Structures are given as structure tokens and as C-alpha cells.
């Protein structure tokens, strides 16, 4: 064996068990004997991975396969049915889009059902909290307002909202929020989505054996479905949730495992849909529940969250974030979680097995997401308060079963709640709400551009490091960062979501703007469906003027450094289809298909003005994003910061003479 190979092997062996920069996890593993039950242990056991699967060139669509298609090996150039690697990878890629779009949109559908039931008075406990936002959506759906009652308007809005899923002809009404030029481009490219379900079904049809084999044509349908997600399902979920639970406004929160309380009943809510968790937030404050907790020996009830359900209730109630995706098992390992209440998406199948080693009760609540070994308490929106009480009681009653508890003393404050409406308000105030100050400061060079850094955690890379390093690099270069999802949780834990982070980490121009407005340099915009808020912020920047007439002309870029889910691919692709340069890290699912990869990384810029890119290292990702932002600044003619010149009379006369 060559020396360097030995060295590599030795390095691999020395790799720590938990590859993370999260101080709470590191503290936990130094103080608790953790059985080999975590995702870090399982990822080692799963290695090495199937290289065909990793490169996107394994096809198992029909039973003549699975086929491993490899363009670099003559005998493996075609699958049994005759398609090459580009077709296989394109089919796999848009099936990922279909999966992601389905997840976001089914979330929206569930929200719409609850919304409609609430509007009809059939869901006690739910109400229309933000009437102004209801009127906004009513206008989008051409629902007349006049003197009609809130209930009347809400019923019609709810019905129209439900309609976007089964619509056959389209376009989805919310696509009309996009810049005019973008809408025209989508229409010309055949990318305007008809109905959410139709686009997803069409992907499943086209990728069936023997249907669509042209990667360009496949990607066109992938784009249409992704747009149906971003400007349809995800956007509708955000809007309806804001109307029912309140549009987020700046609010103080806390983050990381240190938010768990040793002397209190800890309930951790995890998943993505906020309907149940909103009720739990109310129920844990019920004196009857607090009294019950005291009777069981606890001092009270502490509610915290993991993943995007956490982001939802942080944004609206300031409920603390216990952690992101890779911390769900770790929260249980503290021994302090009396119940982990899960809804849908990003749940690990291991939760009940991990819980068995401690005392946590894992409670599934959605008929669409059951886990073997967990207790199921079905959430009924028509009886939401009672469901929430049943869950909270189960958690309280489990408190006396605790064994050893170790809660890392690690937590960090953050400010959340930056909806695009709130940014508009903060930049201009009630009477002159505006994105003009942002555009002006981009034009004058104080702010270089804007980046959306979003997405998951992935156990294949160092947990949180990808998010934190990238975001620090961006803000140091005067790029304002907008965040959602687990990426936002990572940066919250690192202290980047506090106003004083501007002085510590941001470049001088960005710091100056943050100080003036009183915002952090990294803005938490919510959960993963709330990436639609980033689309709206970008659209406001376009419509404000001065930075071109389309999203593709803006000095902006997107990234998901630690992505892992199909939802991330759908999100990434709706940003690309909306004109945004988007960089992913960790791994890329089409590397075995050179023509398709070239289409996504280069060709798509010709089609939508946005494109994909991939880089492993954070500094390379940052540099690529900054280079792109500078390229756009150059195209806009604002590449150099311009000094303000005060004209004297002589200079004015010279101008007049000219």
C-alpha cells in the first residue's frame, strides 16, 4: 500500500465519531456515554455508498433493471431499455423535484383544509389572526372584499387556495406575483405551472419507462413542477399560515440544546406543519396543565422545537429552537425530553429506538407519517385543543420516568421573525414602507448583494460548519444573508442572528446599514416553505427599481451547503427557474451524466437566467456566489462604489454648457 493511501486510511480512522461544530453535541458526547444508535454511527455502517446511486445513474424504474449506466464505459453506456446516463439522471433528478414539490404542497393542502375548516367555524381554536394578509391573498385570488365579513372572504379564499392543487389549465394565480418579465419568460418556455398536482403527476408519467427520454424536455417539466412548488404550494402554505397564526414580526428567541430545562417537563415538537404545534403552544400555558406538571414533580412545562416546526413557532411565538435536523436524536440523548411530538418530514426512523434507551415518548400525530415503535395520537383539526391536551398530558405523565439527565449548558439568543412584509416595514416604516433603502445601499456599494442560504443538515459533512462558514464569509464581504430551515438554526446557534453580529462579523458597509436599520446581518425568514418569502423579497427588489427588471438581473445568489432532501432539490430548482444562481454543497446527484450536468450548470442560464453550481468547500461556494453577484453588479453598471459629489456653481455651469 502506498504511503499516502496509508495516511488517508489513518486519517479516516481518526475521524471523530460526531463530525459537528455544534458545541452542545460535542459537550453531550463528552459527558454522556452514547450508544451506537445515532445517524453518525449508521452513516459509517452504510459506507462505502453505491457510486452509481451517488452519481444519479442507477435506474430502477422498471423490473428489467436495476441498470447501472456509465457513459465512460462502453458496455454500460445504455440501460436495458436503451436510455443513456443523461436520461437516467434527468429522470431521477426531476423525480426528486416531484418528491420535494409534493411534500411542500401536501403541507400546503393540509394547511388549506385547516384554514377552510377554521373559516367555516368547524375548527375550534383556530381563527383569522391577520385580516390584512387575508385581504392581500383575496386580491391575489380575485376574491372581492368590499364590506364582506372576514369569514365570508376567508371561505372563498380557502376554496380558491384548495383549487390550485387540482387546477388543470392554470396558471397558478400566485405566479402573477413574479416580475412581469419573469412571467413572460415562463410562458415562452412552457414553464408556467397549471395546477400543483398536475405537474407532479406529469413528472411521474414522463419518467415512467418508455415515455420522455429527452433530458432538456424532462428538465422543462421539472422546472414547471418546481415553480408550482415555490410560487404555488410553498407560497400558499406560508400565506395561509400567516393569516391563521400571524405574519411574523421581530421576536426574541433562544437556540440549541441548552434551552431544555432540567426541572420542567420538556416537550419537543419536530417536523414541519405548525397547525398542531400552534395548539400545543396554547395548551402548555393552561393552568390545568401546569398544575398537572407540578403534581408530577416538575416546576412547569417547557416547549422547544426541532427543524421547521420549530422555525414556525419561533417566528410567531419566540418558542426556543432545541436544534436542527441532526440534533433530533441528540435531544433525546439528553434524557430530558419527556415527549417528542412529530408531524411530517425530516423525521428519523430511529427516534423510537433511541427513545427506548432513555425515557422519551415519541408521539406521531399525522396519519401520513407513522413510525414503528412510536405512540400515535392522531391530530384532528376539528378537535385540535383536545388532541393537544392529550399529547401534553402524555408528556407530563412521562416526567417521573426520567433516568439520568444531562443538558449541555449551550444556548444562544437570536432575533427571528423577518417576513418580507416586516423587512419592508423595517426599511421604511408604516407610512413609507419600502425596499428602496436596500436597493439604494446595493447601488451605492455598501451592500454588495443579497444571498439566500437555506437547506438541511447532511451527516456526510461536518454538521453546521458548511452553513456557518459560508454565511460568515458572505457577510464579511458585505452580502446580506436571508435564511430559512435548518441552515437558519445553524447560524442562530452561532450567534449570527443578533444585531451585534454585524459589528463582529460583517463588512463595514453591511454593518453600517444593519446598525442604521437595527437588524442583524443574517435574517431568519422562517421554515422551508417560507423560502417563498425570499422569492417575494427578491421580487420587491426588482419592482422597486434600479436593479433591472427581473430576478435574474439582481446581484443575488442562493446556496444550500448541507442539503440532503428532495425538498432541497425542488427549492433549488425553483430558485434556478426564477433566475437565481444557486450553489449546492456536500454532493451533487447528476455527476455521472455530463451533458445533463452541463445543461444545469451552464445551459440553464440561457433558458431561465439562473443556473446550478456545486462546490464542496464553503470558501469556494462563497467565492462563486460573490463572483456571480459582482458579475450582476457589472451588468447593472454599479460595480464600483460611487462617491457622492456636491456640485458647486462652476460645476453646474459646466453641466449646463454640456
Amino acid at each position, binding site marked *: 500500500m502506498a504511503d499516502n493511501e496509508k495516511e488517508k486510511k489513518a486519517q479516516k480512522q481518526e475521524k471523530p465519531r460526531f463530525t459537528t461544530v455544534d458545541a452542545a453535541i460535542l459537550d453531550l458526547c463528552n459527558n454522556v456515554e452514547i450508544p451506537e444508535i445515532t445517524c453518525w454511527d449508521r452513516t459509517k455502517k452504510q459506507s462505502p455508498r453505491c457510486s452509481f446511486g451517488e452519481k444519479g445513474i442507477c435506474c430502477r424504474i422498471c423490473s428489467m433493471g436495476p441498470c447501472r449506466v456509465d457513459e465512460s464505459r462502453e458496455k454500460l453506456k445504455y440501460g436495458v431499455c436503451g436510455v443513456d446516463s443523461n436520461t437516467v439522471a434527468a429522470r431521477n433528478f426531476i423525480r426528486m423535484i416531484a418528491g420535494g414539490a409534493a411534500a411542500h404542497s401536501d403541507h400546503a393542502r393540509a394547511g388549506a383544509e385547516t384554514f377552510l375548516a377554521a373559516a367555516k367555524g368547524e375548527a375550534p381554536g383556530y381563527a383569522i389572526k*391577520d*385580516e*390584512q394578509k387575508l*385581504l*392581500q391573498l383575496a*386580491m*391575489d385570488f380575485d376574491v372581492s*372584499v368590499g364590506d364582506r365579513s372576514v369569514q365570508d372572504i376567508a371561505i372563498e379564499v380557502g376554496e380558491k387556495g384548495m383549487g390550485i392543487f387540482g387546477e388543470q389549465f392554470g396558471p397558478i394565480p400566485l405566479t402573477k*406575483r413574479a*416580475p*412581469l*418579465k419573469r*412571467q*413572460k419568460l415562463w*410562458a415562452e418556455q412552457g414553464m408556467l405551472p397549471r395546477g400543483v398536482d398536475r405537474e407532479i403527476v406529469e413528472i411521474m408519467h414522463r419518467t415512467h419507462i418508455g415515455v420522455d427520454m429527452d433530458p432538456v424536455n424532462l428538465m422543462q417539466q421539472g422546472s414547471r413542477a418546481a415553480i408550482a412548488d415555490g410560487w404555488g404550494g410553498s407560497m400558499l402554505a406560508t400565506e395561509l399560515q400567516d393569516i391563521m397564526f*400571524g*405574519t411574523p*414580526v*421581530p*421576536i*426574541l428567541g433562544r437556540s440549541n440544546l441548552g434551552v431544555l430545562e432540567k426541572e420542567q417537563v420538556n416537550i419537543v415538537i419536530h417536523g414541519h406543519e405548525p397547525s398542531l404545534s400552534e395548539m400545543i403552544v396554547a395548551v402548555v400555558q393552561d393552568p390545568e396543565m401546569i398544575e398537572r406538571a407540578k403534581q408530577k414533580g416538575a416546576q412547569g412545562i417547557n416547549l422547544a422545537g426541532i427543524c421547521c416546526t420549530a422555525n414556525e413557532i419561533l417566528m410567531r411565538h*419566540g418558542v426556543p429552537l432545541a436544534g436542527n435536523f441532526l440534533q433530533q436524536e441528540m435531544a433525546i440523548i439528553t434524557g430530558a425530553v419527556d415527549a417528542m411530538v412529530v408531524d411530517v418530514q425530516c423525521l428519523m426512523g430511529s427516534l423510537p429506538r433511541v427513545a427506548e434507551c432513555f425515557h422519551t415518548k415519541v408521539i406521531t400525530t399525522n396519519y401520513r407519517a407513522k413510525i414503528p415503535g412510536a405512540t400515535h395520537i392522531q391530530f384532528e383539526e376539528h378537535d385540535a385543543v383536545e388532541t393537544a391536551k392529550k399529547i401534553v398530558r402524555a408528556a407530563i405523565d412521562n416526567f417521573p420516568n426520567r433516568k439520568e439527565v444531562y443538558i449541555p449548558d449551550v444556548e444562544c*439568543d437570536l*432575533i427571528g*421573525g423577518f417576513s418580507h*412584509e*416586516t423587512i*419592508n*416595514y423595517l426599511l*421604511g416604516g*408604516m*407610512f413609507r*414602507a419600502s*425596499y428602496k433603502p436596500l436597493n439604494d445601499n446595493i447601488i451605492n456599494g455598501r451592500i454588495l448583494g443579497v444571498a439566500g442560504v437555506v437547506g438541511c443538515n447532511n451527516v456526510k459533512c461536518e454538521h453546521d460548519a458548511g452553513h456557518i462558514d459560508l454565511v460568515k464569509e458572505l457577510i464579511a464581504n458585505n452580502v446580506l444573508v436571508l435564511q430559512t430551515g435548518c441552515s437558519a438554526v445553524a447560524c442562530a446557534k452561532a450567534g449570527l442572528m*443578533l*444585531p*451585534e453580529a*454585524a*459589528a463582529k462579523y460583517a463588512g463595514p458597509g453591511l*454593518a*453600517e446599514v444593519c*446598525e442604521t436599520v*437595527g437588524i*442583524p446581518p443574517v435574517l431568519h425568514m422562517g421554515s422551508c416553505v417560507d423560502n417563498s418569502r425570499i422569492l417575494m423579497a427578491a*421580487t*420587491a427588489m*426588482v*419592482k*422597486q*427599481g*434600479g*436593479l*433591472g*427588471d427581473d430576478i435574474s438581473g439582481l446581484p443575488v445568489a442562493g446556496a444550500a451547503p448541507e442539503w440532503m432532501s428532495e425538498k432541497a432539490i425542488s427549492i433549488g430548482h425553483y430558485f434556478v427557474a426564477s433566475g437565481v444562481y444557486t450553489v449546492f454543497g456536500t454532493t451533487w446527484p447528476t455527476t455521472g451524466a455530463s451533458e445533463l450536468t452541463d445543461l444545469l450548470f451552464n445551459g440553464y442560464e440561457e433558458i431561465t437566467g439562473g443556473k446550478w453550481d456545486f462546490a464542496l468547500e464553503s470558501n469556494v461556494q462563497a467565492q462563486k456566489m460573490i463572483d456571480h453577484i459582482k458579475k450582476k453588479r457589472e451588468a447593472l453598471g454599479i460595480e464600483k462604489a460611487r462617491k*457622492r459629489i*456636491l456640485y458647486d456653481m462652476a460645476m453646474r455651469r459646466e453641466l449646463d454648457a454640456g
Partner: protein
Amino acid sequence: MVDEKKVKKESWTGEDVEVLGETYAEGKPDTPVLWRKKFKNREEMLKYLKSGERYWFSDDWYGSEKRKTPA
């Protein structure tokens, strides 16, 4: 109270001047910034849609899209 910091900057006349630097008082609001509660009635809500959210809801096309025909 946060310590005051002074920084040197160039004034509009080109002279070097010393001004108060950034303060970054810890941004930890005790209560949420409930700006959306300021709307008193539907009229105000609709008015704000046309002014504050004018990018989408003004009667006229706005900013970069002014004078353009709909797509």
C-alpha cells in the same frame, strides 16, 4: 449603556473627521415588534396594501415595471 466608540471618516468636504462609531446595543426586544397591530380597520388595511405593498397591489404598475404592458 453601550460604550461610545469614535471612528475617523471623511466628510463631504474631504476633511478627516471623528464621528461616533457604531454602537450595536444588544438587540433583544422584550416583546415582539407588533407593527401589524397598528391597522385599526379594513380601510387602513387596504390603504396599506396600496402603499406599503404597492409592488403588488397599487393601482398602477410600479418601479421597474412602470409603463410596461402586462406579460
